[in-house]
């Protein structure tokens, strides 16, 4: 039924320095096209490291990441840029770029050496403006936007890369409640309509449990468990992983609301 987009086998992630620092190892996982996968876990469990590794921005310590069956390391940087796009938490330095220009930068992996936009590229930019419902913002300067509008623009930019896989690092951070709901629902809709795989990490457990097709729970030990939100709630894993000194995380409450 579902097509595997990305697969990791016996993956070890961490940092290369004089001595390799392993954040997590023995990771096996699969990402499916057309699905929204949400990664949750406490601070410092290695979520961002895992996302960077899967997006090819950071080298693996061991094991393989396969994109459509091809090892990520065998792809050139520009080949990778046509298959994987990212939305990061970091803000980029302010500039005189309009929303349309920011989104058009997503087309660069497809353009010639000078970055010339063809009619096709322009049409794709129009299309993603429409998909994110931000046509009205197209001529505005990016740095005059609200946080919610910026996040939609960055998602549109990543979408303009026409990826097989979009990876988003905390796309709901800094957003108010209506914008969090709007962004997550939009991502789920985009997963369905574009057929790409969407992977995001978030601390919005309540929301994520309701929209995710697949949930990945990363523990501080580096242990990664995959399953449907229902399975992971019923098994008591979520309640345990997010327990506080004052008691367990009331994960079952989320089930009743579903």
């Amino acid at each position, binding site marked *: 039924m579902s097509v595997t987009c990305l697969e990791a086998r016996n993956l070890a992630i961490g940092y290369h320095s004089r001595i390799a620092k392993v954040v997590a190892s023995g990771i096996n996982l699969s990402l499916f096209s057309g699905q929204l996968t949400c990664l949750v876990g406490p601070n410092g469990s290695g979520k961002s490291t895992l996302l960077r590794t899967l997006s090819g921005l950071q080298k693996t310590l061991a094991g393989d990441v396969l994109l459509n069956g091809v090892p990520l390391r065998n792809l050139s940087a520009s080949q*990778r840029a046509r298959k994987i796009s990212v939305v990061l938490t970091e803000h*980029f330095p302010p500039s005189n770029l309009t929303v349309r*220009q920011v989104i058009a930068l997503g087309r660069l992996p497809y353009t010639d050496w000078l*970055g010339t936009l063809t009619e096709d590229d322009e049409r794709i930019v129009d299309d993603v403006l429409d998909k994110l419902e931000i046509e009205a913002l197209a001529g505005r*300067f990016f*740095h005059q936007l609200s946080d919610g509008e910026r996040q939609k623009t960055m998602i549109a930019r990543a979408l303009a890369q026409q990826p097989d896989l979009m990876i988003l690092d905390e796309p709901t951070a800094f957003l108010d409640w209506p914008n969090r709901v709007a962004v997550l629902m939009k991502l789920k809709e985009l997963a369905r309509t574009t057929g790409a795989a969407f992977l995001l990490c978030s601390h919005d457990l309540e929301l994520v449990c309701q929209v995710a097709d697949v949930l990945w729970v990363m523990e501080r030990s580096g242990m990664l468990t995959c399953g449907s939100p229902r399975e992971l709630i019923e098994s008591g894993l979520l309640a345990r992983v997010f327990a506080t000194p004052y008691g367990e995380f009331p994960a079952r409450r989320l089930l009743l609301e579903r």
Partner: protein
Amino acid sequence: MNRSARTRGLWLGMLAALALAWLLSLIVGAVRIPLVEVVNILMGQGASQPAWQVIILDFRLPKSLAALLSGSALAIAGMQMQTLFRNPLADPYILGISSGASLGAALVILLTGGGGVHFLAKLGFLGNAGVALASASGALLVFAGVTLLARQVHTITLLVLGVLVGYLVNALVRILIQFSLPEQVQAYLSWTFGSFGGVSWPQLAWFAPAVVLGILLAVASIKSLNCFLLGETYARSLGISPRRARWIIILSASLLAGAVTAFCGLIGFIGIAVPHLARSLLRSSDHREALPACAILGSTVALLADMLAQLPGSSGILPLNSVTALLGAPVIIWVILKQRNLRQAFST
């Protein structure tokens, strides 16, 4: 569309201003030569007065070409540095290239020759070429260091190193000055004032190819400069190799800044002010537009500054460096005030 009509008008205006400034630079000077005669001389039809032909072909033409090339080179290098370092106050000299050139020039001017009232004038062309050669070697030395390091260290580290090299060289130059004759100090000082006048045809044969190569490299870096507008991580996610892109950008900017400093001395402000002017006129940071605009506006500003430096109607000459600052500072102030939001203005 309104915007595209405005943009087209803007480009035509900029090109017209450049052409006008270039023609004016040939007409205006200690001797005023009529436009018709200038055109005749340029077309190879000779002039009614043989002296005019010499003035145009041997002095004003190479000088105006030097101004044209220098203005483009400094503005483009400045824009590259501002984007690479994400710093609105970055200029072509930020990597310490000009410090190397200064040291080279200082060594030749302050340590050689017995010194006379017109030390450089006495040495004539040889003196000029010697200073150019020495400052080019100094620039090349720093350039080699910077480009070797650029592959290994962090962008900010490079910035700090450039500033430190500048301090080091200034200290050495001051020591040299302490032990030099007043005439030599005067000669060195006038080198730091900057001038397009010292560039003759034989020097242009080296200067022009260096600048053209630098500009070609800059054009090749346009796509990565645009990616860098989103920061290094996004640039990588778009398939750009930040290390290689940064290396090409630094190679290009150093070549441009080094060539200008070697042949024309220190010329400030064009490299900081013109990129801001270009982006603010175009209302765009897209380097596909901003880079050619920088080239055109930079050349125009350099030609105008050179004309003003000659004090029309008098035989005196102002320091070129002061003229560019007097022209450039109001431009920056205007850009800041016009945009109201200071952060926005400085980030353009």
